Structure formats: structure tokens, C-alpha cells
């Protein structure tokens, strides 16, 4: 019989009082960049933006340049993308509350700068794989709003024929949308291996959350990636909470960019779309020039709960959410800078807002009109095996329901 003291010793949370709060030392200010000379008149002429000194932290790695070449056109596109993404997530939120979307639904409101910053740093030939908070990524990879919302609504014209729902959506060079925490990480290493093998000048962006970072297979993927020097950019989207558990309560080392140990790391202000773009652009170049993998940490914040059943207010204060929303919002931050630099006018921004909203709303309305899948046995048994190579038949609930391909 064990003594009570021994029981105590065995319990891992006894030392919780001594665990320091999660360190997130890069700034999360979304409006921390500056320009040194006047912005050019031309829409697509490049100019240089100076990023805040607190945009990055590195581990065994020279920091990326603290400057970013961009253009008015690109800034406006980034702004549009983030506004459209948020509008789409808000539509999903509404449809869920109207009970039209059922099941699981994880929104990325607040985290837009990560998906948008990454997409603007890479090409369509690079690959992205992420976890279940995936609507925004699917959209940035070319998934239409109507196909994404249609998927959430379980419609046949949804991006995965309505079979997957919120967590499962693929697009070209976008490998989902993965429901099992951490499972996408070794898959991402495999994607990068194929790129290396085929001598493609591309990288694979592999995203997971701070919660998932403790899954064993994440470390298995790290090892393989370094061992074989794969052009993969692992990326922890650290939004501070794995469901309702804060990073410091689940992770012995909350500096996720150091989690690769033998893989250099880069922590980036994930609330600032410009810093994110700069970091990923630099990292991609690092990876595809034969330097092997990197572990990035995008410091970000989700405004909503983990999923629709989590109000998101029991494990963090309303003040914290309010503070992030009002002072660190990625959309408001970029907007402020664009106005300050004279990239655009208040009116033009309003116009962009309006267009983004109108486009998203129209596609959402279209998605709502999409038909439900037909109730046929073929729909239920399709895509278990490659079409045309299925076994002769598959069983239903009873022998009479056997389906012959």
C-alpha cells in the first residue's frame, strides 16, 4: 500500500504553482511596422516596410531581415483577405447558432494574420497542411466561400461533398483540415520528403496548435525531418489555449519554437500579417536552399472559444479577450498602418470592407441554397476505395442492404 505522501509525489500537477506563465515575448501588436520614406503612388511599386524589433525571436538561427518589401496592391489584398475570412467565420457562427450547421465547428476569428501572412509569402506550389481550425486556410488556398460553407452545411456541393464538415476540407496543395490532434504533422513531413525527392523548389507548411505540440508524433516528425533534411516549416499556431487548458498548464516548455531542439526555431508575431509574411518568406528560402526544417511559432490569439460548444470565457478573463480584440486585432492593425502610410483612404477601405462582405454574403446565400446529398446507397459507399477499383460489394446494416458497385 502506498503512503499518501507517495501518491502526492506521483501526481504531476503538484508543482503547478511554480510553473511560470507561458512566455510570449514577441510583441502581439498588429500595428508595429513603419515606413521610412513616403509610399509610392503606383499601386504595384514595391516599397520597404520596417518591422518592429520585437517581431521575431530566434533559436539557433539568424533572425530574418526586419524589413519587408511590399506594395499598396498587396497590402490591400491582405486586408481584403483578412476581412473576407472573418466575414466567412462570422457567417459560420451564425449558421451554427441557427442550427443549420451541426457537429463540430472551430472558428479562427482573431487568427487571420497567420493564414493570410503565410499565403502571401509562398506560391500555390508550396503545400499547406493544418489541423481542424482550417476554414481560413482552405479559403486562402483557393477554396471558394460557398464550397466551404456548403461543406459546413453538409451539402453535396461542399468542398468534400458534404461528407467531412468543418474539420475536413482539401484544396489544391492544401492537405486539410485534419481532425486528430497532431496527426497531420508527420504527414506534412512526408509531403516535404516528396518535394525534396522530386527536386521541387517548394516547402511544406505544417501547422498545429500549442495543444497538439505535446503529441508524440510531432517529435517523431521533427526527427525524421532533420534526419533527412526535409524542406518543411513546422509551425505552432500558439493561441495560448489548447481547448480550455492554457499553454503553461500543458507544456513543460512553452517556447514552442525551441521544441525542435536540433531544429532551429523562429517565433513570430502572428497578429501582424506583415511580420508573418516576412518570417515565412525568409523561412521558405532557408528550407529550400538545403538548410532543412525550421520550427516556427506564430504567436496569435483566438477570440472565440475552442469550438462552438465552448463560450471561451471560463478559462480566461473577458478583459484579456477584450484587450486583444481592441489593441492587437490583425485587421484593425493593418488598417491603421495603411491609413497612416497613405496607402489608402478611409473611403477606399470602406469600399474594400463592403466588397468583401458582399462577396462573402452572396456566396454564403448560395451555399444555403445548395441541395442536400441524395439519399442513395452509392453516395454512402463511394470513395472508400479508388473509384473503379472497389471490391464487388460492401455490406450494409443487413445482408439485403449490400451495395454492388
Amino acid at each position, binding site marked *: *500500500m*502506498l503512503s*499518501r505522501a507517495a*501518491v*502526492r509525489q*506521483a*501526481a*504531476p*500537477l*503538484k508543482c*503547478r504553482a511554480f510553473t511560470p506563465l507561458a512566455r510570449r515575448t514577441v510583441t502581439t501588436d498588429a500595428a508595429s511596422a513603419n515606413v521610412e520614406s513616403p509610399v509610392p503612388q503606383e499601386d504595384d511599386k514595391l516599397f520597404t516596410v520596417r518591422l518592429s524589433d520585437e517581431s521575431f525571436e530566434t533559436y539557433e538561427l539568424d533572425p530574418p531581415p526586419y524589413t519587408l518589401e511590399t506594395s499598396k496592391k498587396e497590402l490591400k489584398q491582405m486586408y481584403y483577405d483578412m476581412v473576407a475570412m472573418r466575414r466567412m467565420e462570422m457567417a459560420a457562427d451564425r449558421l451554427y447558432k441557427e442550427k443549420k450547421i*451541426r*457537429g*463540430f465547428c472551430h472558428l479562427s476569428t482573431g487568427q487571420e494574420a497567420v493564414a493570410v501572412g503565410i499565403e502571401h509569402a509562398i506560391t500555390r506550389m508550396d503545400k499547406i497542411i493544418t489541423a481542424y481550425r482550417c476554414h481560413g486556410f482552405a479559403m486562402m488556398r483557393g477554396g471558394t466561400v460557398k464550397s466551404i460553407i456548403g461543406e459546413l452545411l*453538409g451539402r453535396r456541393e461542399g468542398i468534400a*461533398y*458534404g*461528407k*467531412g*464538415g468543418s*474539420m*475536413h476540407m482539401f484544396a489544391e496543395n492544401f492537405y486539410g483540415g485534419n*481532425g*486528430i*490532434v*497532431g*496527426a497531420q504533422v508527420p504527414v506534412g513531413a512526408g509531403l516535404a520528403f516528396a518535394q525534396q525527392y522530386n527536386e521541387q523548389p517548394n516547402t511544406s507548411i505544417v501547422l498545429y496548435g500549442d*495543444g*497538439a505540440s*505535446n*503529441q*508524440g*508524433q510531432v517529435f517523431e516528425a521533427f526527427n525524421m525531418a532533420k534526419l533527412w533534411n526535409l524542406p518543411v516549416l513546422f509551425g505552432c499556431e500558439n493561441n495560448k489555449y*489548447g*481547448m*480550455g*487548458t492554457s499553454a503553461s498548464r*500543458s*507544456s513543460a516548455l512553452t517556447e514552442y519554437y525551441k521544441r525542435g531542439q536540433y531544429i532551429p526555431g523562429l517565433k513570430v508575431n502572428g497578429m501582424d500579417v506583415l511580420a508573418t509574411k516576412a518570417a515565412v518568406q525568409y523561412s521558405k528560402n532557408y528550407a529550400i536552399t538545403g538548410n532543412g526544417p525550421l520550427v516556427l511559432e506564430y504567436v496569435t490569439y483566438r477570440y472565440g472559444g475552442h469550438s462552438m*460548444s465552448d463560450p471561451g470565457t*471560463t*478559462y480566461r478573463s473577458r478583459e484579456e479577450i477584450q484587450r486583444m480584440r481592441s489593441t492587437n486585432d490583425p485587421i484593425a492593425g493593418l488598417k491603421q498602418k495603411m491609413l497612416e502610410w497613405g496607402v489608402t483612404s478611409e473611403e477606399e477601405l470602406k469600399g474594400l470592407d463592403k466588397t468583401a462582405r458582399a462577396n462573402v454574403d452572396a456566396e454564403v446565400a448560395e451555399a444555403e441554397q445548395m441541395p*442536400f*446529398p*441524395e*439519399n*442513395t*446507397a452509392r*453516395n*454512402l*459507399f463511394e470513395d*472508400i476505395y479508388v473509384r473503379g477499383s472497389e471490391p464487388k460489394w*460492401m*455490406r*450494409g*446494416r*443487413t*445482408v*439485403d*442492404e449490400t451495395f454492388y458497385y
Partner: protein
Amino acid sequence: MASSRTSLRSLAQAPRRLYSGAPTPAAKLNLPIDYKTTPILHHTSSSLSNTSDYPAGATSKRLNLYQAINSALRTALSKSDRTIVFGEDVGFGGVFRCSMDLQTEFGSDRVFNTPLTEQGIAGFAIGAAAEGMKPIAEIQFADYVFPAFDQIVNEAAKFRYREGATGINVGGLVIRMPCGAVGHGALYHSQSPESLFAHIPGLRVVMPRSPAQAKGLLLSSIFEHNDPVVFMEPKILYRAAVEYVPNEYYTIPLSKAEIIKPGNDLTIISYGQPLYMCSSAISAIEKTMPGVNVELIDLRTIYPWDRQTVINSVKKTGRAIVVHESMINYGVGAEVASTIQESAFLRLEAPVKRVAGWSTHTGLSYEKFILPDIARIYDAIKQTLEY
């Protein structure tokens, strides 16, 4: 075959339906389960005390399944300070509220959150159990158990076989997980992987049908057995199933099936949530075919299972149907049906039928089409009786 074609055609012509759970207006059999009246649950405390499984004269309280699990965990934590409860978000009460208030009551050194690390949770639990603890590990959804599959199959199940003469075992280890469909869980929140675990000697696999059963079976898994137990809780019952549950400590033996409705003409073997559908199908058939009397058996423990009760029943009735929610291919039904034909072949009046989930994945809006329902069970009873 003619009847099945008709039923498939009517399925195809059915008006547009939303997600599972909503019956078509024309439905006669596939109506929602009325958990308030189903004979499967103890709706009065007196019906509870008339049952041999439960302690005589015990006080009882109406609880739903998650409250009954909570009560069992509380009882276990009070009974032995070697009991610990952990898993993802367990400290806050768990996503299904099963561990609600336990951390406040017993402290964060006995009830605690783990990182998202299923393989780690299982391995950690095995190690603690080997040192004499009684770890009750929660896997948030049965769909998430697969990273832990190696630990459960290769470490936990083979522990006793490997330990030589050291006497170390992982008794008291219970891995709980919510399983089964609720109507909109899609690919990763609907699965019921009991047959995968039931393939592994050394494990005990349990699935309770009701709150009172759950408490007794869970306490039995923790305290009465020296083998690792995979304890699967049909999550649709967490809130739906409410019945009287004894307040005190009691156990229900594992590997013992229960005849929950005696009958002479046909035996239905099932476990977990489909029992409610079986019960509805039985009362429908007994109305439309007067004189017919169907026996319903709850396996309760899926492995090692109570062959004797099943064989005795089929020897009496001569007809059997196995019903389960998980997919039919290589499922529990295959094992039960095969055992019946080995042991009661000469008494069989009809082939053993299986009614189970289709051999496909659970698409978001397809659940209602691929899981057993009352009409399919009714049809199977009719065909088997008329064979």
C-alpha cells in the same frame, strides 16, 4: 429481397431531410427513442431495488449517464486514495461533464488535466497501475484512442503475460472513452471501436447500457479486476438516459451478460445504445405478431464475453440476431454469430442475422443511413421468425 428493394426505394424517395434524428413524417417504426418510458431504464426506485444487480434497500437518485459516471468516479476516489482520474480537460469536468467538481473535491494531485497526448496518457496510466495505483484515464473521444492503441495492445494487454514471476499487474487500470454516434459527429466523433479492442486477449472491454449499469460496471472494473479495462460509454446516453442509480458503492460483475427481457421465440444479442432500438423493435413486433415473445440480451462485457448465457438462450429460442452500431465487417456480431453456430447449430431454426453499421465511414450528414435503426431490426426479427 423484394422487401429490401422497396425499402431502399422508399429511402431514395424520402423527402429532403436534415441531419439524423429527425424522423420522416411517414415513419412508423423509426421514431425517436422515448427515454422517459423505455423499459430499459429504471424509472422508479422500486424497480431498481427489485433487480439483483443492485444492493438491496439502497437509497437511490435519478441520474443521467454522465452523472452516474461522475458518481462512480467520486465513489472510487473516496473509497481508495490510490484512485486517480486524469485526461484531457478532465480537471474542468471533462467535455461531457463526467468529472465535474471532482478536482475541487479531491484536489489537483488526484484529478488532473493532461496534455493532448493520448499515447502518453495510456502509457502513463499503465505505469501508475503497475505501481499499485488505480488510474482512471479518460480519452476524450473513442475516435482519439488510436495513438494510444500501441500502449493498450502491446503494453497493457500483454503486461501480465510478460511479467514472469514478479506478480506485477496493471489491475485497476481503466481507460474510459465516450463512443458512438449522436447524429452529427462525422468522421472523428462517431466511432465505436470496441471490436478492435475485443480482438486483444488480456483486455476487458465493457460497454454499459444505462446509468445504473455504468456505475456498477465501472466500479467493478476499477476494484474487482486485476486486468486492464477499456470502458466505452455511449455518449448519446450521457444526457438522454436518466434512471434511478444507487447512491452507494456496488459492483456488477464483468463478463456476465444480462437477459433484460425474457422470451421464447427469438434471441437478440446487443449492447450499449442499440438496446433501446431493439427494445422498441421488439415491442412493435410483439404487437403486430401476437404470441411472439422475443428475448433481449445485453452483453455488457464485450470481451471476454458471456457465451453461456447467449448459447443457453439460443438453444431455447432457436433463432438469433446480433445488433451493434459499429461496422458489420469483422465486428462483434461475427464472433457472436459464429459462436452460436458452433455451439447451438442443431437447435437453430434460421440463420443468425446481423444488423450493424454499414461498412463505410461516417459522413457528416449520412449517419442516419448507415447505423442500425428500429425498422431494420424489426425487419430482421420478422425475416428470422418467418424463415
